[in-house]
C-alpha cells in the first residue's frame, strides 16, 4: 500500500510552488488515487469551516447579523476542505480572531435594536439581577450553538457568569454578551464533536442531527431537527428517513449541494483570484464572484430543480447567466439578475469545463495553462494524483510565448513532451488541457493564438475528442469520472479519507448512484442515511443497502 499523499492545498503559496511550476514543467505521475485508504482512527472533531460558521450564525441569530473579521484559513487536503477540517485545530492567532468575531456577533445580538427579539427578557422586579432571564436565554441558545442540550450544571454556571459580568460592567446585556461571546469561542461551537470516534462510541440523536444538517444544508441543525433528536426519533431508521426527506425537500437543500460543489471545484479560491487587468480587462474581482455564482446556479438548476443526470454537468448547454459575465462569454446579456442561457448546438461551450470559473481558476494571471487545467481534470474529476515536477527542469522553450516558430501553446508544450522524463506526466495532463485552449486565461473564447488556428484535438486515455464539448462528453461517459464523484462525495460527507473497510460502502454507494440514473439526490440521500446510522449498533446499519459482494468492493 503506497503511503498517503497529502497536500496542503489551502496554503496557497506552498501549493503555488508546485502548481505554478507545473505550468509547462515536467511532472511525474505517482500511481495513486486521491485519498487512498488510510488506517489511522478516524477523527471525530471537525472544525467548522468559515461557510458553516457563517451559516450557523445567520440561522441562529438572523441573516442581518454581520460576521466581520478574518477567519483562520481552512485547510484543503487532497482537494477537500471537508477533509482538512478533521486535521486542523485553532492556533493562538486564530483564536484571537474567533474571539474578536464572537464579541462582535454577541454585541449585535444583545444590542438595543435586537435584544427584544433575540433575548426576549431582562432584569425585572421578580428577577432583579436577570439571573432567570440569562438562564433561559443561554439554555435556549446553548442548544443551538452546541447542537446538544446544555447540562443543568452548565447552564447554571453560564448564567451565573453572565450576572457576575453584568455586575462588573454595570450592564445586564453587556454581561450576557460577554458570556455569549465565550460560547461562540468555545470548542463546543467551533468544532463538530462526534462521539462515534470513541472506542465503542455510539452516535446519539444530536450527533446524527448535526451530521444530517451539515451535509444536507451546510449549517447547524434547526429547531425541528434538534427536537426530533430530543424525542429519540433519530434512533430509529424511520425517524431518520423522515428527517432526511424533510431536509431534502426544503429550499435549504440547495445550500448543501452548493457547499459540496464549492468544495469539490475549489470555488472558494475564486475569492483570491486575480488576473492581470492589462491583459484581461474584462476580468475583474466582480467577474470572479459572478463566475462562482454562475457555476453554482448552473449546478443546482440541473441537480436540484430538474433532478437531472449528474453526468450532464459535463455536457449541458444550459448555463446561468448575468450581466457581469457578458464580456467574458461575448454574448448580449438581457436584463438584470440571473437567467438561464442556452448555448446553441455546435457552440464550443458546453459543460463545466467551459465555464469561466474552471477556466480562470486553472490558469496563470496572464495566460492559459493546459497543464494546470489538465491536472485539475485528472485530480478533481478522475481522482488521480498528479505530482509536482522534479526540481531540475529546463522550461525555456515551453514558456517563451514570443517564440517565432512555436507560436501556439500546444507547439511549445510538444517541444518539451519530447523529453522522456517530462512526458511521463505531461502525457496525462496536457492533452486534456489543450482541449480547452480555445479559452484564454480569463475564460474568453479565441479561435487563434498568434494568428494560428488553435488545434483542440486530443485523447482522454484511448478515446479521441475534438474540442472542449467533446472532452466533456468523454467525461460524461466515463465510469471512472462518476465513480470519482461518488468517492469524493463520500470523503466530503465523512470528512476523511476512506479506510480499507469503507471501500465496500463506497462501492455500494456507487451502485446506488448508477442505479438511480446518476441522480445526485440519490447519492446525497444514501450518504445522509448512511451517516445517520454509522456508528450505531448493527441493527440499523445498512438496513436498506443489502450486502455488497467482495468483487464490488474494489475501487476503480
Amino acid at each position, binding site marked *: 500500500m503506497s503511503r498517503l499523499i497529502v497536500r496542503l492545498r489551502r*496554503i496557497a503559496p506552498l501549493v503555488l510552488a508546485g502548481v505554478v511550476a507545473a505550468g509547462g514543467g515536467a511532472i511525474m505521475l505517482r500511481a495513486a488515487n486521491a485519498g487512498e485508504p488510510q488506517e489511522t482512527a478516524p477523527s471525530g472533531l471537525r472544525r467548522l469551516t468559515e461557510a458553516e460558521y457563517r451559516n450557523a450564525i445567520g440561522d441562529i441569530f438572523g441573516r442581518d447579523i454581520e460576521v466581520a473579521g478574518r477567519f483562520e484559513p481552512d485547510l484543503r487536503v487532497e482537494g477537500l476542505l471537508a477533509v482538512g477540517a478533521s486535521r486542523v485545530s485553532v492556533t493562538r492567532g486564530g483564536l484571537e480572531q474567533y474571539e474578536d468575531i464572537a464579541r462582535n456577533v454577541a454585541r449585535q445580538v444583545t444590542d438595543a435594536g435586537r435584544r427584544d427579539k433575540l433575548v426576549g427578557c431582562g432584569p425585572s422586579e421578580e428577577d432583579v439581577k436577570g439571573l432567570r432571564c440569562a438562564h433561559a436565554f443561554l439554555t435556549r441558545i446553548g442548544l443551538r450553538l452546541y447542537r446538544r442540550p446544555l447540562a443543568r450544571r452548565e447552564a447554571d454556571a453560564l448564567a451565573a457568569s453572565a450576572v457576575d459580568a453584568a455586575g462588573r460592567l454595570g450592564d445586564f446585556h453587556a454581561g450576557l454578551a460577554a458570556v455569549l461571546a465565550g460560547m461562540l469561542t468555545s470548542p463546543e461551537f467551533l468544532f463538530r464533536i462526534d462521539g462515534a470516534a470513541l472506542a465503542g462510541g455510539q452516535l446519539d440523536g444530536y450527533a446524527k442531527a448535526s451530521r444530517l444538517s451539515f451535509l444536507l444544508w451546510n449549517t447547524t441543525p434547526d429547531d425541528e431537527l434538534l427536537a426530533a433528536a430530543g424525542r429519540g426519533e433519530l434512533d430509529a431508521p424511520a425517524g431518520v428517513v423522515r428527517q432526511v426527506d424533510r431536509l431534502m425537500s426544503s429550499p435549504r437543500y440547495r445550500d448543501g449541494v452548493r457547499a459540496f460543489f464549492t468544495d469539490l471545484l475549489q470555488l472558494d479560491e475564486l475569492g483570491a483570484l486575480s488576473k492581470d487587468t492589462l491583459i484581461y480587462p474584462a476580468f475583474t474581482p466582480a467577474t470572479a464572484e459572478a463566475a462562482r455564482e454562475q457555476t453554482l446556479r448552473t449546478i443546482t438548476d440541473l441537480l436540484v430543480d430538474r433532478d437531472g443526470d449528474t453526468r450532464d454537468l459535463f455536457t449541458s448547454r444550459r448555463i446561468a447567466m448575468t450581466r457581469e459575465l457578458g464580456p467574458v462569454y461575448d454574448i448580449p446579456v438581457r436584463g438584470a439578475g440571473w437567467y438561464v442561457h442556452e448555448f446553441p448546438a455546435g457552440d464550443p461551450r458546453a459543460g463545466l469545463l467551459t465555464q469561466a470559473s474552471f477556466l480562470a481558476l486553472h490558469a496563470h494571471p496572464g495566460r492559459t495553462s493546459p497543464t494546470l487545467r489538465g491536472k485539475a481534470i485528472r485530480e478533481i474529476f478522475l481522482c488521480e494524483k498528479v505530482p509536482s515536477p522534479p526540481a531540475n527542469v529546463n522550461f525555456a522553450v515551453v514558456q517563451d510565448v514570443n517564440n517565432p516558430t512555436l507560436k501556439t501553446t500546444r507547439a511549445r508544450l510538444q517541444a518539451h513532451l519530447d523529453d522522456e522524463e517530462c512526458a511521463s506526466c505531461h502525457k496525462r495532463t496536457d492533452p486534456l488541457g489543450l482541449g480547452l485552449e480555445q479559452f484564454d486565461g480569463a475564460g474568453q473564447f479565441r479561435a487563434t493564438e498568434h494568428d494560428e488556428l488553435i488545434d483542440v484535438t486530443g485523447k482522454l486515455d484511448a478515446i479521441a475528442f475534438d474540442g472542449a464539448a467533446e472532452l466533456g462528453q468523454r467525461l460524461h461517459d466515463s465510469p471512472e469520472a462518476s465513480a470519482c464523484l461518488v468517492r469524493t462525495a463520500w470523503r466530503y460527507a465523512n470528512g476523511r479519507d476512506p479506510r480499507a473497510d469503507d471501500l465496500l460502502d463506497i462501492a455500494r454507494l456507487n451502485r446506488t448512484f448508477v442505479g438511480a440514473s446518476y441522480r445526485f439526490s440519490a447519492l446525497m440521500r444514501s450518504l445522509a442515511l448512511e451517516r445517520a446510522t454509522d456508528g450505531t449498533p448493527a441493527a440499523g446499519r445498512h438496513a436498506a443497502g443489502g450486502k455488497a459482494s467482495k468483487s464490488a468492493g474494489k475501487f476503480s
Partner: protein
Amino acid sequence: MTPSWTSRRRFILRGLLGGAGIGVGLPLLDAFLDNNGEAVAATLGGGRLPVRFGTWFWGCGMIPDRWVPKSTGVDYDLPPQLAPIKAVQPNVSILSGFDVVLDGKGNLPHISGNTAVRTGAPADIWQAIQAPTFDVLISDAIGAGSYFRSLDLSADGDPRTSYSLRNGSSLNAAIPTAAELYAKIFGGDFHDPNKADFKPDPRFLVRKSVLSGVGEQRRALAARVGVGDRARLDEYFTSLRELEGKLALQLQKPPPAEACVIPQAPGRSGGDLTDVDARRTHHRIMAQLLAMALACNQTRAFNMVFSTAASDLRQAGDTTGYHQSTHEELIDRKVGYQPTVDHFATRSMEAWADFVSALAAVKEGDGTLLDNTLVVAHSDVSYAKNHDVSGIPVMLAGRAGGKVRTGRHIRASGEPISRVGLTMLQAMGVPEESWGADAMRTKRPVSEIFV
C-alpha cells in the same frame, strides 16, 4: 502537546523607567541569559530594552554569481544584486554556502528548501514537517509579556502566505494587509504605553474570566473525543491559555516605551499586489507599522513574507511572472545571466533594504530598534532556474541587543543550513544544543556572529 518551551518565567523589574520608580511584572527574557543562565543585560538606554526576533522571506533566491560577495569578513564587496543594501550594509551580514542536505530525499520545488531552512529537515509537503518552524520555538521563548506573541505578516494580501507552522496542519496565518495590521496593533485593545494615567478596564477582566470558564470544559471535552483528536484539543486549549494571558496583561499598566509613537492609519491597499512596484510600496508601509509595533512593545517576534516561495511577483502587463522567468528565460549571452530574473532578484533586495531601514529608523536608547533586534532573511532556493537548494541565501540584520556582530560576510562550504536555525535559537536564548533532523542534525552554530 505541552512543550517545555511554553514555560513562562517572570521576574520583577524594579528600576527607574521613564523617570518614575515602578515595579512591573515582566517576563524573564531568555535572551538576557547566556548559556550558563547568567544575565547578560542589554545596556542600551535607561533600562533594559527587550530583544526582538524576526524572519524575512523572499521567493526565488538569486543568481549566485551576481549576489554572493567575493570577499569575506567585514566590508565585504557588494555584487550587483546586493547593491541595494549599500546604505544598511554595516547592519547586514551575509551567510553564503549553507546547503539543504537532501540525503537521498527528493527536491520538491520551492518546498524542500524552505521546509529545510525552517524546520531543519527537508519535507515533500508542509503537512509532513516533523518539527515546528524555528521562529515558533523562538516566539514561544521570548514572546510572552507583549500583547502579541508574534506578528505574522505577508505583503501579498493573502493570509495563507506564511511559513510559520507549529505542525503540518497548524499554520500561523498572516496579517496580509497594512490596514489590517494597523487595526490589529493600534485598534481597540491598544494601550498607549506612554500615557500617564492607567485604569484597568473591567471589560478585559470579564473577557478573561469568561475564557477561564471555557477552559474549565477541557476535561469533559477530552473524554468525548478519541485519542487521535486529543492533541488537537490540547492545541486549542493552549491557544486559549495564551489569550487569557494576553488579557491579563491588559490589566497592568504597560511599561513606558520611549520610542513608541502611534502612527497614522494607512489607506486601503489597492491595486494588484502581484505587481512588484505595488508590492514594494505595500511592504514598506507594513514594515514601518511593524517597527512601531515593536517599539511600542506590542510584540517581540515577527515573520514577514515579501514574496511567496516560487515568487508570485510580476510586472503588470507581462504574461510571464518572475517565477516563470526563472525557468524559461534564456541566459543573455552578452551579459551572461537571465536579465529579467536579475531584475526581480534585485528588486527583492531593495525590499529587504527597505525593511532593515524601517527598523533602523526608530531611535531606541542610545541606538536604534534594529540594534535590539535580530532578523534573519532567507529564500527557498539559491539559483531558481533549477531549484538549487545548495547555498540558499541567508542574511542577518541587527545586533540582538549587543549579542551579535553585524556587517560581515560569512562563507561556508556546503555545510548544513540547519546551522543557521540553531544559531538563531541560541542567539535568542532557546536552550537547544543541537537542531535539525537526520543528515541536517547539527550542534554547530555559526559562532562567528556572536560577540
